[in-house]
């Protein structure tokens, strides 16, 4: 059946869902993981999430007058009255619909909504018959196996999909870095720095397996940078300091500087080509100009000097990365230092990788020097620190999935519907490692 059809790759994140077909270099659809449902219109048991109205008490408690009593009135199709993605955001602006986010902190929170979200993604946007395609889904590191089982239940029982593979986002991000020219061996060992809208994770991966105990997260990510830019604009009293403007400025003008003090003086010396003007055009045709100044390099600087933005989180990102690697098993540390991979929208600033590499190298060199001095005469062979920047960073996990999903052996790694029927949901607790040792 599913002989030539490309695999479907779905990366459902907290903020955005990336959907597409394996083999392409960018996802076909990227939209918010949001679903707008009809708010319960005074139904007896209807909850706010637009779930079907079921009487509060089971029927044996209400003397048989439970939900069975009014089943005949249920010929409607209210459960199909919903929107996902950008349509959901615009529908929620109007009356009658409420918006919900089925994924919280990377993990699926509301399975009812997620099932419907998937159904609409598959049938309306991707337009595929799930029985003909294999699916590659992603999950965050440390996802409980129960969530995997729930996912498998939905994918196999509702959609009868031909085959399913669930991969960890960090591992896929490592696979995506294979496109970079700096990567010589396609190993799945490395440290992934995944920075999206909400939170930044530093995840060590050894031979395709996440070292769960060493994962660290940093509460600074894209949204904080936007807020920081906005506050700088407000302080200066710019004519437009809305969140959208701050976001545009962040995306268009920001970069990482090697040294802020020097950068400040450079701005003062060559002010003409360093300071920019950003033009904001309103829907009504008017436009204003906003000055863009020091925030160009100050905003991404909060990763390296968090004290300029937050007062309770003060550890710079390079130190965190170093700690993560130092707490990992000693035999993989060399590989982790050598292959630090960036992923997610907030790592796209120019020279972000270079600065990170330099700072981590400083930390490592200082430590080596100290231990050399202590040992009294021993010489270290040195340690290679390398941060990998590549073109597919923005949708890293999705692209990694697309890369692995198009390989001929991908199908043999999937669990099929027949296997699921034989063994049950627990089958998805284990997957053979895709792209790991032994595969081409």
């Amino acid at each position, binding site marked *: 059946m599913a002989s030539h059809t490309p695999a479907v790759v779905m990366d459902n994140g907290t903020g955005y869902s990336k959907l597409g077909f394996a083999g392409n270099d960018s996802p076909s659809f990227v939209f918010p993981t949001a679903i707008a449902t009809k708010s319960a219109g005074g139904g007896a048991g209807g909850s706010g999430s637009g779930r079907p109205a079921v009487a509060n008490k089971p029927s044996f408690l209400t003397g048989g007058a439970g939900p069975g009593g009014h089943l005949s009135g249920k010929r409607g199709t209210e459960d199909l009255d919903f929107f996902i993605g950008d349509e959901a955001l615009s529908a929620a602006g109007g009356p009658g619909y409420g918006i919900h986010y089925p994924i919280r902190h990377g993990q699926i929170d509301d399975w009812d909504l997620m099932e419907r979200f998937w159904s609409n993604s598959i049938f*309306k946007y991707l*337009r595929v*018959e799930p029985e003909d395609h294999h699916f590659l889904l992603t999950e965050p590191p440390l996802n409980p196996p129960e969530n995997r089982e729930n996912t498998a239940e939905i994918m196999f029982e509702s*959609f009868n999909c031909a085959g399913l593979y669930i991969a960890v986002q960090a591992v896929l991000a490592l696979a995506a870095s294979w496109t970079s020219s700096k990567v010589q061996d396609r190993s799945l060992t490395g440290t992934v720095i995944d920075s999206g809208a909400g939170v930044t994770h530093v995840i060590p991966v050894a031979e395709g397996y996440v070292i769960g105990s060493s994962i660290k997260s940093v509460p600074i990510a894209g949204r904080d940078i936007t807020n920081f830019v906005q506050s700088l604009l407000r302080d200066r009293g710019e004519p437009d300091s809305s969140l959208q403007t701050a976001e545009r400025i962040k995306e268009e003008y920001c970069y990482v500087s090697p040294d802020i003090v020097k950068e400040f003086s450079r701005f003062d010396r060559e002010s003409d080509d360093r300071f920019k003007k950003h033009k904001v055009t309103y829907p009504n045709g008017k436009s204003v100009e906003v000055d863009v100044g020091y925030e160009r390099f100050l905003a991404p600087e909060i990763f390296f000097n968090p004290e300029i933005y937050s007062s309770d989180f003060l550890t710079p990102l390079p130190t965190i990365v170093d700690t993560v690697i130092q707490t990992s098993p000693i035999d993989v540390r060399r590989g982790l230092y050598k292959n630090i991979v960036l992923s997610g929208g907030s790592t796209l600033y120019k020279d972000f990788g270079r600065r990170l590499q330099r700072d981590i190298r400083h930390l490592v060199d200082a430590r080596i020097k100290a231990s050399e001095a202590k040992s009294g005469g021993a010489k270290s062979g040195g340690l290679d620190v390398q941060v990998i920047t590549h073109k597919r960073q923005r949708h890293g996990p999705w692209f990694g999935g697309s890369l692995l999903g198009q390989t001929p052996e991908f199908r043999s790694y999937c669990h099929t519907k027949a296997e699921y029927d034989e063994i049950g949901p627990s089958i998805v607790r284990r997957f053979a490692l895709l792209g790991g040792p032994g595969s081409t």
Partner: protein
Amino acid sequence: MLLLDYQNVLIESLLTDRFQGGPPVNIDQVVSDFDGVTFHISTPETKTKILVSINVKCFHELVQYGAQAVLEREYGQYIVAPENGYDFSVQVDLENLPADQEGKDDLIRRISLLKRNAMAAPFEQAFDEFHELSEEASKYTSESAPAGVQEGGEVRAIHYREEEAIYIKASHDRVTVLFSTIFREETDRIFGKVFLQEFVDARRRAIQNAPQVLFRNDPPLELQNIPGINNSGSGEIGYITFVLFPRHLTKQRRAEVISHIQTFRDYFHYHIKASKAYIHSRMRRRTADFLQVLRRARPENEEKERKTASGRTFRVQS
């Protein structure tokens, strides 16, 4: 979402985006559509020339039923030689678009309906044949008609999936469209039966001018002499028959009817899946309710064994 869209959303959004005059970018995407259709959207020569190619499993059958003419009518000047590995290609030059917004929208709509238009040819041909036959039949009374007019034309078979096919047959007073459909899943088969029963009932209950729908597990009489029909009558294959009457076949209804009936199989399977999702959400809800009842049933303050510091236990004398 009750009905499935006829157009491919990706092509539509991609073209809309490009036509608005953003900076030209490279596009290279291979995407699927229902029924094993594959699209390839690319910019092979320059960034301003978008090539959309389609690969349909049963294209040679469609050509046999006049697909080329239909596609030429729809796409005219945009047609280019088919890309290697694909059946049909159209190319749009961003520097040479229709000037007005309406023309652009129309072009986007037409290209995103590529699959629908390719599949429409046998339907159009059958509908034309119906008009011819009905004209011819009006010359005779029911007894004197020669056999050919009575029985109608040939059966057009479109094997659009590996194991499933659409058969279209025109007669002088109706056009019959038959779907052979296969269910891989026991559960799906049962859901399917309920749905099809609803289709049959809908006509009886309220909507009198809907086309007649029949469902059976053995091949209907119309398909008796068609090669490759599975005659086993086992439960796996079902035959769904739509009988379109002259009122469905008028010129102004035609396009809509073709679009609708094409998406039938996907529509059908989509709704089976959506119902399962609905039932699952009710099951989850009910489980949560039961758990709540169980929690309520737990005694509020359980009598715990109390211990003294030295580890001895004692019981309160009643």
